[in-house]
């Protein structure tokens, strides 16, 4: 703590200020304006070059009057953040002078580590995103706006719930094999089951934090650092790349301006499944069950109400009106409820049908129109107000934003309030102070359980009752396949995140060129989740916990202290040197409190108010469901140095060194060293370079190491956790320790060419990189005789190698009309290069044995192996569909399908079943018959942005693409095989031309539609491969896989800037109106719902919506 206190002292600093005086004869007056905005500049100091002590400053209108000894003097204009300018008076009495900001003089400025550099001097792989790209996105999460915009950055957004971000931001393939994620989520609205955290370090105004929930409207610049030259300075956390975001600031000496912006968005479902209507489903379901050879209990299903298309005999009035299944015998309902009741139903839309399997019997049923009730147009509103400006000593930017987004699925929403304040104060000539405060309050309404409540529950059959006769919703089929309206009626989930970030920083110029920049920031992040389930009617299926309440709080805090000493100096004018040294200390703590209760006595109290126990049947039971608190803490400390050198901007050299420590490593392994070196050559600055075509040319290269410390305390020191048995409190070892764990490090080499053609009208940037991640911190499999199947280990190495191309072009550049385009392409290949010795070929971890047709031998495949690209998919190969039972019988005589259900194995194949390939010809279909199908993750990604300007009109069209991944259409498979519960809506394909329907149907693509394919059937569709997705909501059957390649037409925006002569009339400085469509369409061969699936299978769920927006920005 002593160290901390000393650090804090640096925030209180002192400086010295100097004054001016004046006296003269020749009077010169004029106005000073910003060269870019033409805003008048206040407080520009104007002196006489020959007599630096005399002079004046500009007033509020940017005006100045200065008296000179003669009209031959030269004026010297100086202003912070602007380049110094000399203006010869030449006996003119009036001068209108434009000052340009320092950055525009240097060209574009980049933040590199703890310094700022001109693009020209940069030697690292850094992409900067134009703030305009962020402006036009209707989504509250800025991550969405990044998609397709930066070469080599993949943003897998796999679902469309409001406010949701990406699984990971994957820069150059990340450093973990499973960055795109696998499996299916069922918690906190996540669509992905698990993924390796591969997010880059995000630094917003110098603070490490998440990019989610930042108001895109507050962002001034966003840049992505991809190679070690730019990330090594962040050492510990830079291995996955770094994203640096600067929020908007005021400017010294600018008039106050107020900007109001508003956007209204309508979102609709972009792609939808075509489910059968109730009549079609009823006919299909009853005939399918009646005719199948599967060993299902037909009588129970058809005549005892075993599924939604089954009938049952009702005996009491009122029974039908609350039964979950809508199918009934017409005569039976008339007899029990009376003709009047039935006539009423028919008037309300109920229908009748002659029972297709029992002609002469009349069925009564209704279509629930569930899909129409679930999916609605979501209406969103976003408002922002920004006040910014500056005096000669202080600048400020204050903004407030409000977003209220409604999703397309009923009951989903995202609400956010945010406030940002940026204040700068020039305390003394040599001391600048900055203060930033950012508050966010995020209130999402996600569908919490993605698998149960989205994937499963939204495709219940059209014959399941949604509302009972008494108006209350039915539970749907089960609580794990629950009627959405039942959830909305009885469950009340409130989640919210409140975040407050404050940062104080100073920049003290000790002597010319020597800066001391200390800063301190504190982040408060409180997540709360409160839940209440009201009592549900006693005569329906009950939840496992009744009147359940939960109250969960996770309070995180982050303290960051930085101290940087920077020295810029020139040697003999042409040698520019920057030296920097500093330290960072970060402490993260969190405190979780979790309480839950059940069996409340009433629905009136939202909070937990239950006695801790209840007596049931004479025994005492605890009502406490959750009852725990935890404290967590990690710390890191780093020391770093950075130097950069250039000679006349021609030859550039840079280097960094960082020494990083993290508390979760064992004492001897806490610290690691991360170096980097980079060099560049601006060939165009050479005197011999005279090309008119190639207007600028730079080659650059870098090498460096960045680290990753993603490990928990228990990985290093082991863990024992509680395990109760027979009401005794037990403690059991929960994992092996590995005190020998070292830092994971990623060594990156980057070689690049940046070129400009035709006066930089066309720019081209090509990067080649090679990223080797060593000592990967992941689990390593252990022999099954060990007490645990894995141990966290420095588990070998992984390489990402690839090429990135970014092209920018001003295709048309006439005064009236312009067309600018950007195009990016990135190819990345991930390969596991090294694994610990384990006596297996290629030191493979995981995987299985399959038969390789090419070599005619059994081989190992899957898992991770040296030299292989990870996350391939193997599945069962379909050769066709049996046309007849005879054809199937001949196959049955030769081959047994061991992967059918146990009941199905007994029945064997029939006409309409898939013919699976017996790859090794051993007469058995088993896991050895898996064949390679493709990869889960795309390896080619990119985007294209076009901007057309005509007068005040601007049209933007952007698109992005991903190639190289395959997707299993799990949603289709599951509804063709009808899961295990018999109650999933059937797709239109089930009665389409591609499906086998009757004996003799030759050459069909799809096997028969069936019920309980997994439990009782042949597992035609619901078949998991050990090396496939191996998930019940995907299908590892070759027919169900398609290429996922897509081009998404992401955005079309038309905006119009009103000319000044109109805006002047209502005293505004500017007015812009726009209309846009987002997620317009896909160009893809994938026939399922969502081609933006990188986890190998598309279970259905919540695809990204199409969003139509109208909005305006008004500036005063």
């Amino acid at each position, binding site marked *: 703590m*002593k*160290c901390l206190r*000393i*650090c804090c*002292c640096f925030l209180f600093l*002192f400086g010295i200020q100097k004054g001016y005086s004046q006296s003269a004869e020749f009077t010169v007056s004029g106005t000073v304006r910003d060269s870019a905005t033409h805003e008048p500049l206040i407080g520009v100091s104007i002196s006489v070059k020959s007599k630096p002590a005399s002079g004046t400053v500009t007033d509020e209108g940017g005006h100045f009057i200065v008296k000179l000894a003669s009209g031959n003097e030269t004026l010297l204009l100086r202003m912070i953040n602007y380049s110094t300018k000399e203006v010869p008076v030449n006996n003119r009495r009036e001068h209108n002078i434009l000052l340009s900001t320092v950055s525009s003089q240097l060209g574009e400025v980049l933040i590199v580590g703890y310094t700022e550099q001109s693009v020209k001097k940069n030697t690292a792989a850094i992409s900067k995103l134009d703030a305009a790209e962020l402006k036009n996105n209707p989504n509250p999460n800025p991550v969405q706006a990044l998609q397709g915009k930066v070469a080599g950055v993949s943003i897998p957004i796999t679902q469309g719930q409001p406010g949701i971000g990406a699984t990971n931001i994957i820069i150059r393939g990340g450093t973990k094999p499973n960055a795109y994620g696998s499996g299916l989520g069922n918690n906190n609205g996540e669509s992905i089951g698990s993924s390796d955290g591969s997010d880059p370090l995000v630094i917003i105004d110098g603070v490490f934090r998440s990019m989610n929930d930042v108001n895109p409207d507050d962002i001034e610049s966003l840049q992505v650092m991809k190679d070690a030259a730019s990330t090594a300075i962040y050492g510990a956390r830079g291995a996955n790349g770094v994203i640096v975001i600067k929020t908007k600031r005021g400017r010294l000496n600018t008039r106050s301006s107020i900007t109001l912006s508003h956007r209204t968005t309508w979102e609709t479902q972009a792609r939808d499944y075509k489910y059968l209507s109730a009549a079609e489903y009823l006919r299909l379901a009853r005939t399918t069950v009646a005719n199948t050879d599967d060993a299902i209990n037909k*009588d*129970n299903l058809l005549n005892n*109400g075993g599924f939604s298309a089954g009938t049952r005999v009702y005996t009491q009035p009122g029974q039908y009106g609350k039964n979950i299944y809508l199918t009934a015998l017409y005569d039976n309902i008339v007899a029990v409820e009376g003709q009047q009741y039935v006539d009423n139903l028919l008037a309300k839309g109920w229908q009748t049908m002659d029972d297709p399997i029992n002609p002469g019997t009349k069925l009564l049923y209704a279509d629930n129109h569930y899909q129409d009730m679930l999916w609605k147009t979501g209406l969103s509103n976003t408002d922002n107000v920004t006040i910014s400006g500056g005096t000669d000593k202080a600048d400020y930017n204050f903004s407030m934003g409000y977003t209220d987004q409604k999703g397309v699925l009923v009951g989903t929403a995202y609400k956010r309030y945010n406030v940002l304040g940026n204040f700068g104060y020039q305390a003394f000539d040599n001391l600048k102070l900055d203060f930033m405060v950012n508050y966010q309050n995020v209130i999402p309404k996600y569908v919490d359980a993605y698998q149960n409540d989205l994937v499963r529950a939204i495709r219940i059959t059209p014959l399941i009752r949604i509302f009972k006769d008494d108006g209350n919703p039915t539970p749907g089929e089960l*609580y*794990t396949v629950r009627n959405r309206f039942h959830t909305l009626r009885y469950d009340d989930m409130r989640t919210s995140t409140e975040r407050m970030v404050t940062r104080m920083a100073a920049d003290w110029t*000790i*002597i010319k060129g020597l800066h001391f920049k200390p800063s301190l920031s504190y982040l408060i992040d409180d997540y709360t989740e409160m839940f209440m389930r009201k009592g549900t009617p006693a005569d329906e*299926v*009950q*939840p*496992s916990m009744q009147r359940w309440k939960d109250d969960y709080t996770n309070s995180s805090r982050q303290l960051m202290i930085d101290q940087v*000493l920077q020295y810029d100096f020139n040697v003999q004018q042409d040698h520019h040197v920057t030296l920097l040294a500093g*330290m960072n200390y970060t402490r993260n703590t969190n405190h979780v409190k979790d309480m839950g209760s059940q069996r409340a006595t009433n629905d009136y109290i939202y909070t937990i108010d239950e006695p801790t126990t209840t007596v049931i*049947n004479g025994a005492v039971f605890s009502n406490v469901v959750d009852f725990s*608190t935890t404290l967590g803490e990690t*710390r*890191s*400390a780093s*020391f770093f140095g950075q130097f950069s050198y250039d000679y006349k901007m021609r030859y550039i050299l840079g280097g960094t060194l960082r020494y990083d*420590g993290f508390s979760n490593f064992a*004492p001897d392994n*806490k610290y690691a060293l991360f170096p980097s070196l980079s060099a560049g050559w601006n060939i165009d600055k050479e005197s011999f370079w005279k090309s008119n075509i190639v207007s600028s040319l730079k080659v650059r290269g870098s090498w460096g190491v960045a680290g990753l410390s993603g490990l928990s*305390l*228990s990985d290093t*020191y082991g*863990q*024992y956790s509680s*395990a109760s*048995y*027979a009401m*005794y409190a*037990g*403690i*059991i*070892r929960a994992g092996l320790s*590995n005190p020998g764990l070292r830092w994971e490090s990623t060594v990156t080499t980057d070689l690049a060419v940046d070129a400009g053609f035709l006066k930089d009208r066309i720019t081209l940037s090509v990067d080649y990189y090679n990223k080797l991640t060593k000592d990967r911190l992941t689990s390593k499999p*252990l*022999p*099954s*005789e*060990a*007490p645990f*199947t894995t*141990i966290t*280990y420095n588990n070998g190495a992984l390489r990402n190698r690839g090429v990135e191309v970014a092209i920018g072009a001003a295709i048309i550049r006439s005064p009236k009309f312009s067309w600018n385009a950007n195009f990016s392409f990135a190819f990345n290949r991930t390969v596991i290069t090294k694994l610990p010795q*384990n006596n297996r070929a290629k030191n493979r971890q995981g995987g299985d044995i399959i038969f390789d047709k090419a070599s005619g031998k059994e081989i190992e495949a899957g898992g991770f192996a040296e030299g292989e690209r990870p996350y391939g998919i193997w599945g069962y190969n379909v050769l066709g569909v049996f046309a007849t039972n005879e054809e199937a019988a001949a196959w049955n005589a030769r081959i047994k399908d*061991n992967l059918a259900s*146990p009941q199905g194995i007994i029945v064997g194949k029939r006409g309409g079943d898939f013919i699976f390939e017996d790859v090794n010809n051993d007469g*058995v279909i*088993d*896991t050895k018959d898996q064949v390679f199908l493709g990869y889960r993750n795309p390896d080619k990604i990119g985007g294209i942005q076009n901007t057309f300007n005509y007068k005040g009109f601007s049209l933007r069209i952007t698109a992005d693409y991903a190639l190289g991944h395959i997707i299993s259409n799990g949603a289709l498979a599951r509804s063709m095989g009808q899961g295990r519960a018999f109650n999933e809506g059937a797709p239109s394909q089930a009665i389409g031309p591609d499906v086998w329907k009757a004996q003799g149907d030759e050459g069909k693509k799809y096997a028969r539609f069936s019920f309980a394919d997994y*439990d*009782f059937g042949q597992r035609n569709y619901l078949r998991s491969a*050990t090396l496939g997705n191996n998930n019940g909501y995907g299908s590892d059957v070759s027919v169900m896989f398609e290429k996922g390649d897509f081009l998404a037409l992401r955005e079309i925006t038309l905006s119009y800037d009103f000319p000044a002569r109109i805006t002047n009339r209502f005293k505004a400085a500017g007015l812009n109106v726009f209309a846009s469509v987002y997620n317009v369409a896909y160009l893809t061969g994938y026939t399922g719902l969502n081609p933006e699936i990188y986890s190998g299978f598309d279970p259905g769920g919540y695809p990204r919506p199409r969003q139509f927006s109208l909005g305006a920005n008004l500036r005063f």
Partner: protein
Amino acid sequence: MVFMKKLCLKILMVFLSAAILSGCKSILDVTPQSSITEQVFFKSEGDFEPNLVGIYTVMRSLANNVTYGTERGEELISASNSRFTVAWSHTLSPSSGAVNYAEWYKGIGHCNLLLDKIQGFAFSSNPDLKKKIVAETYALRAYFYFHLLRIIGDAPLMLEAVVNDNVPLLPRSPATEVMKQIKADLDAAIQQFKGMSNFSATSYPSKYRFAYGSVLAMKADALLWSAKVLGGGNADLQEAVTVISDIETTGLSLNDNFGNVTGIRASANKEVLIAAYFQRDETAAGNYSKNALPFLSIIQGALNLDSIPYAVSSGNGQGAYQISPLSKSLFSNTADKRIPFTWILERQPSGPKVSWITKYPGTKYSDDRVPDNDIIVYRLADVYLMKAEAYAALNDVANSVKYLDYVRGRAGTGAYAGAVTKAAVEKEILDERGRELFFENKRWFDLLRFHKGGTVNVYTYVPNLAGKSTPLFWPVNSTVLANNPNIKQTDGY
């Protein structure tokens, strides 16, 4: 300017010293507040009893797994749903339904670690506690090995405490070697119990944990296996008889009413030696009878709805198992009092439907029925039938029938009246076990013993095995083989 330079110098010095100071490693020292690490655990005598308790959770998990003890037998067919694995259809192969025995070795690993760590503690103020802990740990290790032995036959013998990634690559030891270790562990447990200063043979401090009597029961069970499957011969059978005689002196008696066998919780059940503990709040998922209990919507309309133990929520009953016709046929005597506590036939207006299993009916609470019965591991009727089996194998038919009749007496089926030949009595014991212990997760192991003993041929008796040549032990899966090159596949695959 002079002032400035001084200040600058001062700050520089402070900055540098801060940098040096922070070099001190203490800045990164964090004491965990909410986790128990290896650095602090097993540093006190008080840590061992909670650790032992924790190991029982592995025992419970294995006792609750019907794939190995039940599915391959003849007891079950599917009901409204189906939850069988390929063990049920006997389509096991190295690539289908093969075992990864990691869970058994997890339990064994816990035992090895405890036995290793406890050596350094004298328990001088309470030496009996140490003996009790060591005894139970040996018993648990024997339980894990005995369970695994019956599934895969030859098994690797891991007896050392693994604390890092150095895991010895063991081959599979012959089943006889494994059995030797099981017997040694059981004898060590018995010795520890007997060495306690307050030892009492009738003491069952908890019916959910191993005590002297229940260790003897496991030993008897192991001896029968050793005798009939591993060629241990008469010596093992004789010893089994002796061991069971000891058990009979530990103060147990049969429940008069068969319904109380599973109807009374093990803690208060005079017939139970040891059970795996279940309780709705401690084990929310319930026991394996969840798959046997129907849920309301699949039996709606049944004329005898009130007599069927059903759950309202499908979370508490899955409706996937029913008793097979073959098992039902064993209950040829309609006076058998066990029938209502074994199954109930659902009667629908359209006719009879599913025969729902009532052995473990769960508990009906005011909100719902929950499958929370204790899963019995050993009870006195089982032990009596073991003794009958041992006597019969020794050709002491008279004594065998005596013990068989203890069980029949309670069931109300009267004294055994069949042929008094070794073969006939042995067949009757197998059938009696099929009635008495139906759905108690023992059937497949019973069938294996009697198959090896020549009483029955499982390849003709078990319908799903008929016509197949699936080996009787399970294959190990490719993960097991891949991670240890010294492991060989189970014979026959």
